[in-house]
């Protein structure tokens, strides 16, 4: 079933600007990417069915989320700041606002295969985690979402590896359970600051979390404390990416590196790319979002 093509056609009717972008970006992707996207949207439909929703609902949520991003981006161009200033703000606007949380969650899920830069960071992760194959016996993921990273880790790492997932949101944890195929994963609903594992980890993944907190240095220090001395931490974070629940503004990749260093970590290998296909000069001029991913070690 070609869900991907159906989705793009529906989006192009409602939002011709974005439809044009998706046709261009998805058109460049391999058949393997399109097959994986269709498989993902099949899983999404099963997930949506549980609450009597369907793919059209997902598309509508995605378009609402996109309008939010555009509105935030307009404000960002004007002020150079994110509009959400604190975790309390984010709670009020999004996390504790069931109506917003509902469409935002579905919109974000839809974006996983519509925003192709997610895939480039994913390829960076896949291409490099293999180097840790024999060293990782304990793997932790903080906020696993639909499981893009952990699903790949379970295929690439050794078969006796233990997998734990920690999430502060029950909704998000339910999504992880629905989307991740591997069954023997330990899911824990807790705040990472309060999490006390019996043993430290060889590898920790934390994708797109740093921009959601007021103090990313403190969060990284906390996560580093759960890592063995020779362990590895994989993080991703966007710079210049206004969204209704983004609090901490990284203005560029160096801002992210500075936070990493201040948290007592160092970059082993990194990947950064703009989310639009533009030159660095244009990206700078129009404050285009940049996606950053890195494998980190303790200093």
């Amino acid at each position, binding site marked *: 079933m070609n869900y991907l093509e159906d989705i793009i056609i529906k989006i192009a009717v*409602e*939002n*011709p*600007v*974005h*439809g*044009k*972008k998706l046709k261009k970006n998805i058109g460049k992707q391999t058949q393997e990417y399109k097959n994986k996207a269709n498989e993902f949207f099949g899983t999404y439909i099963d997930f949506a069915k549980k609450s009597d929703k369907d793919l059209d609902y997902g598309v509508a949520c995605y*378009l*609402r989320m*996109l*309008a*939010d991003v*555009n*509105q935030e*981006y*307009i404000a960002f*161009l*004007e002020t150079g700041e994110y509009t959400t200033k604190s975790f309390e703000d984010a709670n009020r606007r999004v996390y504790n606002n069931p109506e917003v949380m509902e469409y935002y969650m579905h919109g974000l899920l839809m974006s996983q295969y519509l925003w192709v830069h997610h895939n480039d960071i994913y390829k960076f992760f896949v291409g490099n985690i293999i180097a840790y194959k024999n060293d990782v016996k304990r793997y932790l993921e903080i906020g696993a979402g639909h499981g893009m990273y952990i699903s790949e880790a379970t295929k690439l790492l050794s078969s006796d590896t233990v997998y734990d997932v920690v999430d502060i949101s029950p909704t998000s944890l339910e999504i992880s359970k629905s989307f991740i195929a591997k069954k023997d994963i330990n899911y824990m609903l807790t705040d990472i600051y309060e999490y006390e594992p019996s043993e430290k980890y060889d590898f920790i993944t934390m994708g797109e979390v740093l921009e959601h907190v007021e103090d990313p240095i403190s969060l990284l220090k906390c996560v580093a404390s759960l890592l063995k001395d020779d362990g590895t931490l994989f993080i991703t974070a966007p710079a210049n990416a206004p969204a209704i629940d983004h609090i901490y503004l990284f203005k560029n990749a160096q801002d992210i590196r500075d936070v990493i260093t201040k948290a007592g970590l160092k970059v082993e290998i990194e990947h950064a790319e703009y989310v*639009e296909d*533009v030159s660095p000069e*244009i990206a700078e001029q*129009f404050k*285009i979002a940049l996606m950053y991913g890195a494998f980190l070690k303790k200093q």
Partner: protein
Amino acid sequence: MNKETILEQINVIGRDVFDDESIVLSESTTANEVEDWDSITHVQLLFSIEKQFGIKFTSAEIAKFKNIGEIVACILSK
């Protein structure tokens, strides 16, 4: 301000944002008819319109913009 005046001013903004002096935007114009109307210039267009008319678009309004006519109608409603 009437529809024609708003459309005229949007044309001035559009020529600047899309960097094309020959552009003529009508109510039915969509991104499909303007080569450089992409996600970046779309936000620039809305940003410049907000400044020009001294208004703010809500997220729900932005979600409904399929063509220039819908942007004009939204400005008129404010």
